[in-house]
């Protein structure tokens, strides 16, 4: 690693025409982390590099979550067999442009990626019984055409509202666009009451896309079973708590809930799922 380089690559060989999937932590329903963890496990990836945290994260101590000390991580994993690289990373807290360029330096010079993808969850007001959609934003027209055959919603119009900031995925797409690297951010609307826990159906939706697009040959039955189990749990809570059932029925009928009811529904479901998991 030279002095200006913020990353280390220790993979045993370089890749050609690989694909990169980026999953950020602290995402809605932890979707990015869930997807990249699932893919890593299924494909038996190995760690091939990392971005050093020093310039990008406050290192004045560690945070503790669920009794465990945390530390920011930005690690690259690889399945040589599938020609796939995965970056699992916390979102940097400073020097974002340099961080994203470091990601792309690894992608371009060591993995010779042909395309990259980011994953993100969007908070949705729909019920969990609504089939999950997959939306895609591309950074180059060619990438948009490539995604045309996968039944994604590719027509999103969006402008950051005042007082909010763009996502790190959008920032990465822009940096990649400036470097001529085709990239797409994938978004799944997640029912708001699952945002604090997990949404297996959303995870399945994204994995299914990657399976088809990157010819990964993954058997998705375990995700089908996990999604069915989550739905059963949600059915149980609806059965046990008429108020929850009534709120979800309203959402299923496109009737908006008050803020108070929405907060209560999210809290009840989060607590119940945590209790029985």
């Amino acid at each position: 690693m030279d002095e200006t380089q913020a990353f280390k690559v220790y993979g045993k060989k370089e890749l050609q025409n690989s694909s990169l999937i980026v999953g950020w932590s602290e995402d809605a329903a932890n979707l990015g982390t869930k997807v990249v963890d699932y893919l890593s496990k299924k494909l038996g990836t190995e760690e091939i590099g990392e971005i050093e945290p020093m310039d990008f994260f406050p290192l004045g101590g560690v945070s503790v979550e669920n009794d465990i000390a945390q530390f920011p991580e930005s690690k690259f994993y690889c399945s040589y067999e599938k020609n796939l690289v995965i970056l699992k990373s916390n979102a940097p807290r400073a020097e974002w442009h340099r961080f994203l360029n470091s990601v792309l330096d690894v992608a371009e010079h060591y993995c010779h990626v042909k395309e990259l993808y980011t994953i993100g969850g969007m908070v949705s007001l729909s019920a969990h019984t609504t089939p999950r959609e997959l939306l895609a934003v591309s950074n180059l027209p060619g990438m948009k055409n490539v995604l045309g055959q996968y039944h994604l919603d590719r027509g999103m119009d969006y402008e950051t509202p005042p007082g909010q900031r763009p996502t790190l995925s959008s920032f990465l797409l822009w940096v990649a666009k400036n470097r001529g690297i085709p990239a797409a951010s994938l978004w799944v609307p997640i029912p708001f009451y699952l945002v604090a826990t997990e949404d297996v159906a959303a995870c399945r939706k994204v994995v299914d896309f990657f399976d088809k697009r990157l010819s990964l040959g993954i058997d998705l039955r375990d995700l089908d079973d996990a999604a069915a189990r989550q739905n059963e749990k949600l059915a149980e809570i609806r059965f046990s708590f008429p108020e929850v059932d009534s709120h979800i029925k309203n959402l299923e009928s496109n009737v908006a809930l008050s803020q108070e009811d929405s907060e209560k529904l999210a809290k009840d479901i989060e607590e119940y799922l945590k209790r029985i998991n």
Partner: protein
Amino acid sequence: MGIVIYKEPELENPVMVASWPGIGNIGIIAVDTLKNMLGAEELGEIEPWDFFYPKKVLIRNGELKDVEFPTSKFYFKRTGETDLLFFVGEEQPSDGGRTYAEGKKAYQMANLVLDVAQKFGCKRVYTSGAAVAPIHHTARPKVWAVPNTKSLISEVKTYENTMLMSDIEGRGGQGNITGLNGLLLGVARKRGVEAICVMGEIPVYLQGFPLPYPRASKSVLEVLTAALGIEIDLDRIAGFIEQSDSQIEQLYEKFPPEIKEQLDKLKFVSYAQPTEPAPITEEDKKRILEDIDKFFKKEPKED
């Protein structure tokens, strides 16, 4: 990380006036108003991506079209005698979550701004910000001025409605200017460039609200225009001040009566070194300021 310059005007005895957002946006409103009223032309900018997180993304029909960053722009205006160079920073560079710049990024930005100032021959830089003070919002805000060299003290003393730190009771000439409006003074000092920060007073009880305070910007503008020897029609921000006054009055009306009662006493408090008998006793003043401090739990400060 760099500077992009669009034009290379020859400037006569140029002075730079710079500002970034801060409490009440007092400095930035003043500098932006001056720049706009004089019809200053765009000169260049500091490339944003190494300093800032984007502020806006534009997606059309599923394609990311553009990303916008906070701007840090330079402008110039030929006035005939003392030409002006303006710098207006839309945000202070920060390491995530902080309002004021500090550390490496702030130092880098201060140096880039001064690189441009010196490239065009500026020997003097003004920055502008806010001074949080125990004053009432109906009072005419004073301006606190901090130069970066002793030789400027006598000049600053000639500015109307302006105080040095040593004029403020109990401070002994000490203080702190947070963020780039302050840091630029230090970096200029290191380079041997004269600099003065002029800070308009904002009432202590308004500092925590996200409201602009153009009344203080006007005080700053009065000082800046006099110091620079230029004239502008300050009545043109009267409407803005009126609008802000009305917002503040509405807010003030919502304060609990016991707090309002205390704050109303600020109309009679002077914290500057007394030059004439005050309308209330020293003991009264001490008690009022202590009571208000208890409500707002803040020390008077500058940005």
